């Protein structure tokens, strides 16, 4: 590295690669850097001077520009952003996958959402049970609200049915069928008898339907 001390540069284009400048003054100069060994400026003054890139340094900027125009907007943007902030681009800038983003696993969030889903499902089941079984009501649009039978007819007014209702019915039914199958007296003293269904059917076929006297005649 060459060292230049106490010099003044006026209106010049200076290649600065691999040089050390001590207490130098640059007036209206262009400092040209080409990507080589970094220059050092110690106690120097700059007056209306600028910088310019050449060689490999210029290639680097051209490369970035080309990749940006080629579609790597995010990647190049990240590099530029780092440089603007005064920091060197990381060794491995974030890889941006435009097709998908890997978010990793978040079991805690999964558990929370699952819990919420279970609670909602349970509430729906309870609501269905309440409406369909515990307190069912049929509401017809514009009609009266129909209450369950137990509330429409008070229990104390409902007819009391025998416990052995089925047996009682069967016995009554059998008795009536037996009566229809045999001839007998209903009231012998009054001369009222009962005949079988078959007898009655045959008589009606032969004689037609009987005429009954009106009540009171």
């Amino acid at each position: 590295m060459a060292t230049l001390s106490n010099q003044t540069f006026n209106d010049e284009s200076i290649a600065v690669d691999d040089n050390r400048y001590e207490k130098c003054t640059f007036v209206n100069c262009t400092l040209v850097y080409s990507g080589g060994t970094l220059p050092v400026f110690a106690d120097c003054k700059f007056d209306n001077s600028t910088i310019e890139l050449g060689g490999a340094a210029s290639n680097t900027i051209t490369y970035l520009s080309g990749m940006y125009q080629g579609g790597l907007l995010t990647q190049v943007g990240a590099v530029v952003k780092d440089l603007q902030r005064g920091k060197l681009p990381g060794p491995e800038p974030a890889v941006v996958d435009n097709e998908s983003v890997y978010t990793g696993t978040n079991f805690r969030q999964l558990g929370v959402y699952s819990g919420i889903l279970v609670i909602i499902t349970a509430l729906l089941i309870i609501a269905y049970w309440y409406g369909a079984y515990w307190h069912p009501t049929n509401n017809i649009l514009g009609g009266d609200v129909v209450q369950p039978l137990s509330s429409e007819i008070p229990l104390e007014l409902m007819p009391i049915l025998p416990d052995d209702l089925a047996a009682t019915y069967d016995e009554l039914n059998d008795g009536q069928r037996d009566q229809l199958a045999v001839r007998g007296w209903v009231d012998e003293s009054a001369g009222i008898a009962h005949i079988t269904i078959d007898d009655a059917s045959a008589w009606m076929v032969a004689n037609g339907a009987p005429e009954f006297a009106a009540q009171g005649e």
Partner: protein
Amino acid sequence: MASVENTVFQNEAVAVDGTQFKNCTFSNATLVFAGGDLPSFVDCQFRSVALEFDGAAVNTFKFLTGMQAGGFSQAVSGILAGIRQR
């Protein structure tokens, strides 16, 4: 300039200086540029690629950030702004 054609680069770092890539696919790859001859990409596809820099390219970044801190922020901003001008 070296030429590479019909190649798929997957999960690897690829040095791109001075190379022409034709009909290549870069998938989950890192493109490494060191400030050398500019690469060329013709009919290539890029999927999940990262940019990495080495050699003179890194020196360039160091020079720019150093000069930015040393009072040349306007000049450096102008250079960086030119990168994203399409």
